[in-house]
């Protein structure tokens, strides 16, 4: 009872004190940390585990529904497959052409083997409910070898950065939020030439990443591919991010800014890969 009385009398004071604590906490979260405390890990893991348990029945029901809706589209699929069967001779010709192309690509892959990394498959447990910073949690953590600062990508391209690692789950921030980029260095390839730039921010109106400080000696064009540069933290080199959709000179005319459309669909993330860069390449 006394507690409530005290609380009522000093409400204003407590709220003010709370604001001070909030600002201190915000400052704390904005600092770059490369380790997650045990208390954070414990809380994070407990919530993640209960969420997975609570989510299981929903997933089961969802599967049944998708099976039922899948059977409706079976007829349409059957028709399409029959059409494809008619095209088989053409496909065979294509196949040969693709085999030759594949050979060529494999050669280029050997060249890029210095950009080696291992992938860890992970499933997204939950998206942040406030839908502001688009962060999410995955079901792999410290015991799978994941560390803070690793790159996270979907099958289409880079999507985020690991910011907190718990025992069996990790917290990912998307590169589409201004909270996580920290002027990440990227490489833009125009024909065979590569130029470097930094991600400045994510333009939410146009849904593009803004890359700045690109040298003007190479004139970029629409459709140029953008990759990670390997100069940022534990990011491997050559992970595709997206395509340039617009180029403009910066206000002083010294460098170019590029608007980059990300390849991954930010709203529909189910399975992701955490990219573990070869530790040997990190030492030098």
């Amino acid at each position, binding site marked *: 009872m006394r507690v409530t009385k005290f609380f009522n009398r000093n409400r204003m004071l407590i709220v003010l004190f*709370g604001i001070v604590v909030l600002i201190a906490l915000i400052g704390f*979260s*904005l600092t770059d940390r490369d380790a997650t405390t045990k208390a954070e890990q414990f809380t*994070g893991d407990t*919530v993640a585990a209960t969420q997975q348990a609570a989510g299981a029945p*929903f997933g089961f029901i969802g599967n049944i529904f998708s099976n039922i809706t899948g059977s409706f589209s079976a007829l349409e699929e059957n028709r399409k497959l029959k059409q494809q069967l008619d095209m088989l001779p053409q496909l065979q010709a294509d196949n040969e052409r693709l085999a030759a192309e594949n050979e060529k690509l494999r050669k280029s892959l050997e060249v890029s083997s210095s950009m080696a990394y291992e992938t860890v498959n992970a499933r997204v447990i939950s998206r942040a409910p406030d*839908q502001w910073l688009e962060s999410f949690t995955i079901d792999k953590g410290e015991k799978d070898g994941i560390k803070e600062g690793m790159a996270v990508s979907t099958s289409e391209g880079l999507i985020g950065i690991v910011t907190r690692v718990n025992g069996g789950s990790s917290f990912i921030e998307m590169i589409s939020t201004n909270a996580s980029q920290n002027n990440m260095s990227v490489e833009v390839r125009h024909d065979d030439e590569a130029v470097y730039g930094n991600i400045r921010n994510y333009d*939410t109106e146009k849904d593009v990443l803004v890359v700045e400080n690109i040298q003007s000696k190479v004139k970029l064009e629409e459709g140029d591919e953008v990759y990670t540069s390997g100069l940022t933290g534990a990011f491997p080199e050559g992970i595709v991010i997206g395509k340039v959709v617009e180029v403009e000179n910066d206000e002083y005319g010294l460098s170019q800014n590029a608007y980059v459309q990300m390849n991954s669909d930010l709203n529909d993330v189910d399975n992701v890969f955490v990219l573990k860069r070869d530790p040997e390449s990190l030492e030098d």
Partner: protein
Amino acid sequence: MQMIVIFIIGIILMYTDMAFATFSPMTVFGVEVYFVPKLLLMYILLLTIYAGPRISMFFAILFGVMLDIYIGSLYGIHIFGFIAFVVFMQTAFRVFYRDFVAMAFVVLLNSFLFDFYQYAVYSVLDFISMPVFDYVALRAIPSVLVSALFFVILYVLAIQTAKVRKELRRIN
């Protein structure tokens, strides 16, 4: 007993909130519309009236810490928000009458203000850049509408959980 029931309901509501993040934002006529119901917050606010401020304060702190550590990019934003809004709810209820419509209005207004508070903090820190008009039209209004749909369920839930205590007291 009441604490356990509230905790379980709170967890379920938290996951319902998160479930909305899987299909929102929806693209309607070429614009992205966000649905961000704040079921957990509304439930805690209702508990302030029906189960007492101390219980709701306890759960505000508990769920605030959980959310901050689990999904927070900025620590403190949930816990401070929850506590501040429980305090605000208490004050608001000295002014407003204790009837259903007034309460629905205050709770929904609070759920809107909570989202606006997050919007303000993130905007000040330059994490997000959403124009205010877009925010109101594409995010605040749809979210409040969804929250209003769920409000009746939460209202029943809050009254039922408040009764748990009474029944136990009668037994004791």
